[in-house]
């Protein structure tokens, strides 16, 4: 699959990218919202992992700009579990919400794969 990772935290981008590549997926990374938006439009990924809190465009704003035009599955990740809860995530148009910190990065990727798999 083609996956887009949008997160301002370098280490998270790196580690997610590693695991996806280990599983032979094509990975694009963006380090802020604006860049993420552009790459999303350019590559039409099947999966987008989107951090909520980023400088510039936030995850929510990116989602809003993309609007209904995307077919991509979206996983929101955030440390502010309370503010961006499940309900809010689905309202925003995301499919899944995963709280930071992750317990296990492989689990995160497993869930992402399943999401795309089921959606087909």
């Amino acid at each position: 699959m083609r996956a887009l990772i949008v997160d301002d935290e370098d280490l998270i981008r790196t580690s997610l990218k590693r695991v996806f590549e280990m599983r032979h997926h094509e990975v694009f990374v963006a380090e802020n919202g604006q860049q993420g938006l552009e790459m999303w439009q350019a590559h039409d990924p099947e999966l987008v992992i989107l951090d909520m809190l980023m400088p510039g465009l936030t995850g929510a704003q990116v989602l809003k700009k993309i609007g209904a035009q995307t077919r991509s599955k979206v996983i929101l990740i955030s440390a502010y579990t309370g503010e961006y809860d499940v309900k809010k995530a689905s309202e925003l148009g995301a499919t899944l919400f995963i709280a930071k910190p992750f317990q296990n990065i492989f689990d995160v990727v497993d869930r992402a794969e399943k999401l795309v798999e089921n959606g087909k």
Partner: protein
Amino acid sequence: MKDETAQGLSALIKGKKEILWLGSDDIRVTAMLGSDKNRARFATISQFKKLKISDEISLVVVVPGQLEFDKRAIEKLKRVGAKKILIVSDHAPKESLAEVLAQVSFAKIIFENNLRAELNLAIEETRRGQGPEESDASVPRTKAMVSFIKNLSAALTIQEVLKTLREELRNFQAVKEPLLAFVNAQNELAVMFFQGHQILERKIQEPWPQRPQVRLNDLKDSQYLANIFGRPFAKLLSIPLRLRYLSTEHSLKVGAVLFFEHGLSEIEANDFLQSIEERLEPLGLALDRLLVEQYLKDVSRLWERTFDGLKDPVAIFDADSQILRANRAFAENLIDVRSADLMSDKLRHRDHDYEVQSYPITFGLSARPTNIINHYVDVTISNRLKKQMIQNEKMAALGHLAGNIAHELNNPLTGVRSLAQILITQVKPGTTLSNDLTEVEKASERCQEVIQNLLEFSSGGYEKHQQYISLRAVVQKTLPLIKTLTSRFEVNSDFFSGDDKVFVEPRLLQHVVFNLIKNACESMGDKGLLDIRTKIQVEKMNNYAVLSVRDTGVGIDPIVQKQIFDFFYTTKKEGQGTGLGLSMSKTIVERFGGVIKLESAVGAGSEFQIWLPLGNSGELPS
């Protein structure tokens, strides 16, 4: 002297100190008076020279025996106030005495067997004031009046005034005891009347129908009293008393009305009226005085009650800061405070905080206050609330801060941990490198947990939202925080291990758990069994996650059980309990759609249960 005579005399002389029995020796007097002799006033003829006017003698019975009773003796008796002298003798007087007796009517020889009749007559005469000559009689009459006034002014109650009046009028046998209608200190119409020896007071509903005026045998007056007493009143004399006290305010129009039930003819009634008329003024004065006294007493009692009824301490000081008066709250709470502290504007005493409000009072034109009233406003509770609010704000700020820090840390930490997890899969297991990476992974996990705990129970921004959380998890996270409380006791715990997620604010629920356990521990003193368990219960088709906290403490009285959920209700010592624990807990639990249940018996312990509706897990349906 025969016994019957003695008995007949006995009724006549009973209590009559104004009769002096004068004898040569007491043998004959004893013979005459029988056992009453000791109660009669007796003097020998040689002693009588010592008599004084203040002895208030009006009638003298002389039993001269063998001795001379002469003109000089008669003169002397007249001077000390005797109005009538009866000389009991069986033989004619000596010539010198006979001469005197012929000229005066107030001294008279009588025969012993006539004694009763003569004495009776003489008593009547002296009482009516029919003395020998007018000038002579006025002395004892004035004296009688003076003693009436004296008695009135010594009277402490209206009852005593009435008794004095009855005593004064007791010679009018056709007149019954007086009745007094008056306006009492509560401004109500009342009537006072004799019943046997007692004097009773009765409130009257019916307004006084007539103009204040002296009336004899007035039908309306009789009807009025008949209505009040439920019996007929035949002949009635009504005499208004003009009092200054409240005299125009009330329907009575005058302060009081005297009623006499009587059997007098019209002429006799006028005589009676005359004799009572001069007594009306002192009577009025006495009543005035007593009613005003009573009124002032009532007013000051009311004031005192008001003063004492105030919850806050209040004290009145003079210009030198000496306490003049203080109310009960003051006496109970502040009596042992140094006077310098009493005059400051803030005061802390026995765990209570007071704000002092001072009100200076000036009398007249003086610029300096003569008195100061200090009101000690008890601000303990409002201070406590204020502190609580400040505390809440601090916690909120801290929570906010913690939220920000946590986010800043969580991001890199997630990266570190994830990367460690990846690297571990890429190195050979069991090598030093693999072990080190595992350490890094574990350390970052611990960091995450610390941050997570910090976030969950500080009142940070995001936790103001309800979330699905396991009841068991909340309880288990709370227990370590209160180890110092529970360590004295044996603790049993049993937690339901399946899905027990409830939709709550974790931090608030933790407060509830904390309060219940704290109360349980506080009820048990030094040892006991604390039982904490969670379970799932079904009630009316609904599933609940239930937490039960049971103690073997003192238990709660059924009456008290109704109050323990009230705000500020506490049985704990001042400064030890706020009385907010349970009331807050109840509010919180109800906010989450739950209830608190209580079972308790004095001496056996208590069990508090919180029932929270079982929720769903926090995943989006896929």
